[in-house]
């Protein structure tokens, strides 16, 4: 019979406490406290609970990654100027937006971000840039909108779609917005490739009109720097959804479906969507931050008049400790 020592050349180590799953991947150990033989594996992508924001909100703007992020504005239910920054371990309130607004577009980093449009009221064209310390007004959108898709950097960013069921796409060069080719399908509240660029972005799902049940779409479009083209649909049509990643590696998660709210997460590989680990809690009007392998789902409406501070963190791959069972 093969033995562990025969295969590995060493005995199974005995430990009083488990190492972290990441440290232990590929190893086996005996936990002397729980008298259990354990091993760690690389598992599929999964959502874990994260550090809650200080202000509960739906439809905020956001920029950055899961290491360094910025979240601002949104519905609390009143519209807010509140801005929070994430430093990798905690959220801190920083300088407020000049004007409270709901559902602005957002892109850039935690120290160089753009807030585009939103509802102040009314739906407006106003934009502000964030320099890590304060917000400053910058060039206005050509068409006022809210609940739009957005991606890029502070000097090369873009917005697409939005309310009132827009197709308009505009590109920002750091000071001025320029209209470019429209989306094929007018929509608001879709999922964006938050880390996309002005030459490669993705917009998927969303709300295409007020009529139920035809309001939700699974349609996905890709931007190539010149025009939008339709590509593979989501598996689950959804409105009030959000996303993260790039035009070739992205996630879409949360949103509204015919039976209520969804926790479903789908992963985009540049060609097709695949269902991956679901959020623990279904919600809508959340905001996605980060990439397809490390993402945040922040805030949202788990119920119509509830504005949550909750954050869930997606990691792919994730690492898992298992106990050897003998039956």
């Amino acid at each position, binding site marked *: 019979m093969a033995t562990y020592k025969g295969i590995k050349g060493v005995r199974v180590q005995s430990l009083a406490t488990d190492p972290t799953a990441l440290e232990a991947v590929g190893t086996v150990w005996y936990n002397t406290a729980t008298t259990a033989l354990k091993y760690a594996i690389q598992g599929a992508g999964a959502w874990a609970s994260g550090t809650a924001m200080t202000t509960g909100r739906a439809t905020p703007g956001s920029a950055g990654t899961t290491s360094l992020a910025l979240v601002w504005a949104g519905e609390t239910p009143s519209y807010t100027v509140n801005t929070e920054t994430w430093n990798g371990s905690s959220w801190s309130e920083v300088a407020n937006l000049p004007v409270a607004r709901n559902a602005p577009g957002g892109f850039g980093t935690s120290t160089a971000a753009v807030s585009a449009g939103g509802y102040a009221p009314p739906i407006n064209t106003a934009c502000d840039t964030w320099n890590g310390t304060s917000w400053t007004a910058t060039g206005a959108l050509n068409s006022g909108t809210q609940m739009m898709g957005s991606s890029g950097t502070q000097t090369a960013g873009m917005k697409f779609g939005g309310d009132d069921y827009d197709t308009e796409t505009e590109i920002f060069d750091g000071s001025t917005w320029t209209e470019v080719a429209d989306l094929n399908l007018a929509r608001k509240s879709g999922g964006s490739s938050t880390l996309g660029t002005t030459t490669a972005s993705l917009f998927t799902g969303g709300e295409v009109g007020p009529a139920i049940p035809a309001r939700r779409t699974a349609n996905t479009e890709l931007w190539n720097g010149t025009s939008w083209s339709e590509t593979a649909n989501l598996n689950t049509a959804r409105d*009030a959804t959000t996303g993260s990643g790039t035009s070739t590696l992205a996630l879409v998660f949360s949103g509204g479906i015919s039976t209520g709210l969804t926790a479903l997460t789908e992963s985009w590989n540049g060609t097709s969507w695949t269902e991956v680990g679901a959020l623990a809690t279904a919600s809508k009007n959340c905001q996605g931050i980060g990439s397809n392998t490390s993402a945040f789902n922040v805030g949202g409406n788990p119920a119509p008049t509830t504005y949550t501070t909750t954050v869930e963190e997606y990691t792919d791959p994730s690492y898992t400790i298992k106990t050897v069972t003998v039956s």
Partner: protein
Amino acid sequence: MANTYCTATNTGKGFFTHDDRNNFYLSGHAGDVWVVGNNAAGVSWINRVSGTAKVKADAQAIVDGKIEEAQANWDNLPADKKTPAEGYATVTRPIKYILP
């Protein structure tokens, strides 16, 4: 029995981990109700988060009550908020559902 039920308050970071999500089914619902895969890891998680065990009928009653509360809140919203309208995030009247 595939799942077990409890109430517990989400305390943020560490409340449920990637490890937990790979080791047992977990979903959160209104009223701090959690549906937890009924295996050793799931039972251990309920103990770790100081969850209060519930039978399914009681967990369902908590969720139903919270949904009825949310439905009443939605019913009391101004008309322009009930249909997708300028300035508002899209919210729809919650629908009751059966816990897994």
